[in-house]
């Protein structure tokens, strides 16, 4: 039976879609059958980050509304055959997602895959609550930045109250994924430290993704960062996070991109 994982955050732009793609590809790399679902109806982007934007014919809403079969809408990744994408609709009304429809689609997917990774829209409204509703595991993506931490706190509250598990008196397994972390700035006191964020949010840490040019480079070319450059610092961090998701104990380190003298002198920061 598949595990349903929701990648969520209160604030937008913290790296949910990037992380969904990266974690999905890393899990698939380990041989698991993975599907990533874009719940961001109206503003779909997961297809773009996965490099499948030109292959979208049917989408999640078509399947929810019964206009297309699940198999027609699933896009199999060209690089990895055990990785699939269920895209979001860009044109349809976001209210077209119904709770029963989502439950039915997830039920069907549970029989076909080992992992179902739901990319949540930002915010605390219906789309976000639908994405987390059936989750077994949640990865809360947070930047070391005040507004992101505050909004994550709200989302953790929702995970504890608005999910199916919470309503049954069970707990959704929650993990913190800290993205865009710069250890040097944290050391200088210019950025919240990992421990600060952990103390404030008090959920277990699943990974620290260092700020890196690789992330933008990978999304530019439409490839999950873990496939595009598996040796890069953010990829290593995502691979470690996946091992922890699977229950392994892996020492928490912050990988860094090694730069030669030339790179240090002339390298530019990605935005």
């Amino acid at each position, binding site marked *: 039976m598949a595990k349903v994982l929701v990648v969520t955050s209160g604030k937008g732009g913290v790296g949910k879609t990037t992380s969904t793609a990266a974690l999905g590809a890393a899990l698939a790399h380990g041989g698991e059958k993975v599907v990533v679902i874009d719940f961001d109806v109206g503003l779909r982007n997961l297809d773009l980050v996965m490099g499948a934007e030109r292959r979208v014919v049917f989408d999640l809403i078509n399947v929810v509304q019964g206009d297309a079969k699940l198999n027609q809408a699933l896009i199999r990744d060209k690089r990895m055959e055990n990785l699939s994408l269920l895209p979001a609709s860009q044109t349809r009304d976001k209210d077209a997602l119904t709770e029963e429809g989502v439950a039915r689609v997830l039920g069907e997917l549970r029989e076909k895959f080992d992992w179902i990774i739901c990319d949540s829209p930002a915010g605390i409204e219906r789309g976000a609550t639908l994405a987390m509703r059936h989750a077994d595991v949640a990865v809360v993506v947070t930047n070391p*930045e*005040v507004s992101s*931490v*505050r909004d994550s*706190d*709200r989302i953790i*509250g929702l995970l504890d*109250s608005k999910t199916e598990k919470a309503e049954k008196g069970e707990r959704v397994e929650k993990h913190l994924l800290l993205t865009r972390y710069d250890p040097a700035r*944290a050391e*200088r*006191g*210019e*950025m*919240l*430290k990992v421990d*600060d964020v952990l103390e*404030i949010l008090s959920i277990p840490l699943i990974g620290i993704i260092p700020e890196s040019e690789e992330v933008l480079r990978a999304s530019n070319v439409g490839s999950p960062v873990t496939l595009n450059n598996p040796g890069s610092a953010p990829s290593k961090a995502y691979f470690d996070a996946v091992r922890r998701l699977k229950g392994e104990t892996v020492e928490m380190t912050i990988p860094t991109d090694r730069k030669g003298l030339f790179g240090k002198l002339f390298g530019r920061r990605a935005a």
Partner: protein
Amino acid sequence: MNLMSFFQRRTSAPVARERLQILLAHERGVVGGKSDLVAVLREEILAVVRRHVSIERDGVQIKMNRGADMSTLEIEVEIPAPASAGA
């Protein structure tokens, strides 16, 4: 530009940390679990006091402070002067 301030730039992360801790301690009390405890309390206190004294809607102020060891609930009911209280 003051040269000293360049060298003694204050670090901002501790400030961020402190602001977040205060803010979230407050928000968790209000938002978390029971929806808006303070607002509910306020309405109920208002109703009870109004049975005996006529008061304005904003005559009831409630503050909740959550500390590590002790939390305080501060209730302030403003009762108008007898002359204007009338009823």
